């Protein structure tokens, strides 16, 4: 688990520590790199104007803000929804460029593609759990849901993912 708090962190540090990680989280959730960068950029622009937002637990704030930004983006952009949320119409490896995807083996591409078919909530939970290694309690706090919901959502998400992969193979 990565450190959860950085007291007195500056915007510079926040960028250096979290910028790339947040883009990746958003890309996994949104299924779109450009949209992910927009979301993260919006968050940091907001923080730049109100640096006090980083005064408490900056990592928690940034992650929550990015998750919320992803939700807004998914609600707003029909193109995003079309590309990333549509059940059964997943991309081969949407968060990655063609060049980057070539560096991954087929199984990992399949897993990432299957991930995009899950519901937004399940994607959020699984990405936070298995990319950021967050605990159920931390995920619950970040998403504003109960730990029990996190647990059940993760279990159902994994089951759905397993089913997708089984059917695809």
């Amino acid at each position: 688990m990565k450190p959860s708090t950085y007291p007195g962190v500056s915007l510079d540090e926040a960028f250096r520590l979290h910028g790339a990680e947040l883009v990746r989280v958003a890309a996994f959730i949104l299924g779109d790199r450009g949209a992910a960068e927009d979301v993260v950029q919006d968050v940091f622009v907001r923080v730049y104007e109100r640096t006090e937002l980083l005064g408490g637990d900056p990592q928690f704030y940034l992650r929550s803000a990015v998750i919320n930004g992803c939700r807004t983006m998914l609600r707003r952009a029909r193109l995003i929804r079309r590309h990333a949320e549509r059940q059964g119409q997943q991309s081969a490896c949407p968060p990655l460029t063609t060049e980057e995807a070539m560096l991954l083996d087929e199984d990992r591409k399949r897993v990432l593609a299957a991930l995009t078919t899950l519901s937004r909530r399940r994607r959020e939970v699984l990405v936070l759990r298995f990319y950021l290694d967050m605990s159920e309690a931390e995920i619950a706090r970040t998403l504003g849901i109960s730990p029990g919901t996190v647990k059940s959502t993760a279990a159902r998400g994994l089951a759905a993912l397993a089913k997708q992969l089984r059917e695809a193979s």
Partner: protein
Amino acid sequence: MNDENEIERTAARLKAALGAAATVMVVRPALERQRVEREFEGVKRVRGWLIPLAAAASVVVIAVGAVAVAHLASPDGTRPAGARGGSPAAAQATRPEYYLTATYPATGPNVLQFQVRRTDGGAVTSSRTISGANVGWGGYLTAAAGDRAFYFAKYPCIQTGIPDTTFYRITITNSGRISGFAPVGRPVKGMVTTLAVSPDGSAMAYNALEKACATGGLTQPGAASVSVADLSTGRVRTWQDTDATQMTLASRLSWTPDGRTLVVDESVRGGLRGGLTVYGLDPASSGGSLQAHSTTLLRPGADCSTCVKTALAGPDGSLIALQSPAAGKPGRTVIVRISSTAGRHRTVLFDGPLQNPGLFTDASGQWVLLWPAQSVTAGWISGGRLHPLPGVGPVNPQGIAW
């Protein structure tokens, strides 16, 4: 049923896949604090001189609103014949009487519903539904000037192969009833994500992304391309960005009310919000290079003080633009009218606490619709205020036009 081992294996595969993807995913250095600072420095400069302009703008907009109210008070309440054989200026005076929405139900994209509503009160005057499996996610609605016609581009979202886009023309009567709903023009290969129709309804301009709907996010591996189809002859001319150094996309198209210029918003894919360049394309030219047949109406400066997210053709050669959040105010929406090609003279039409609205105009370019992302209410701008457009409800709106 999944057994425990399968779930554990899936978890391990997911963790490995996410880790591997994160390793190969190169996050561009553009996401740096310096860039954000530059954008905000631009904001401060813009804000400084926008304040007096905003005050002046409010007077102008109120005056325009007063004229519109006077027109709306006419006994028949109908709008003039408009640009088809008439004066575009005449069509500008009156707020559109009806608007059209295309929506999907919450259950998915198997039913596409078009509704015509009155701008005043939001009463549904007519509706039409297309049913069937996979009628296609999304589409783009636009309206031609004056002839009570709306245009819609639709393509099936398929996972493999490049879809064909079909265009439809929807006409309504003076009383808001749908009188015609039929394909128009020839289907084109690719996903059309922006569509504009000439003021006289004789030509359609569109982009066409030649890629599978469900793959690759929004990234288009190529240059921005714009096509114009003559609806009477079927002739299609295409212009393409010739700058091979960057990946670009024609993100929005709009026709000036006089029909002489096609405004092309060009985004640099993956770029930050400063990446929008706006071209004024001569639609009568023969096709070929986008740059060679266009004038550059707006280009973001180094400090991003002129950054916009969307720019549409406005009245009298102006642009109606949605300022980038970084160039405007984060968490707020600033709509400006840009009256010079250099982008220096800006008049604030609206400044309010909206998140990521879509920007739409009527064919005169004068009446501006906002479709806020975090609200179920769309609205039109007048007098610096957003007036709700009733009926744009919580049902996956796919397009709106008036």
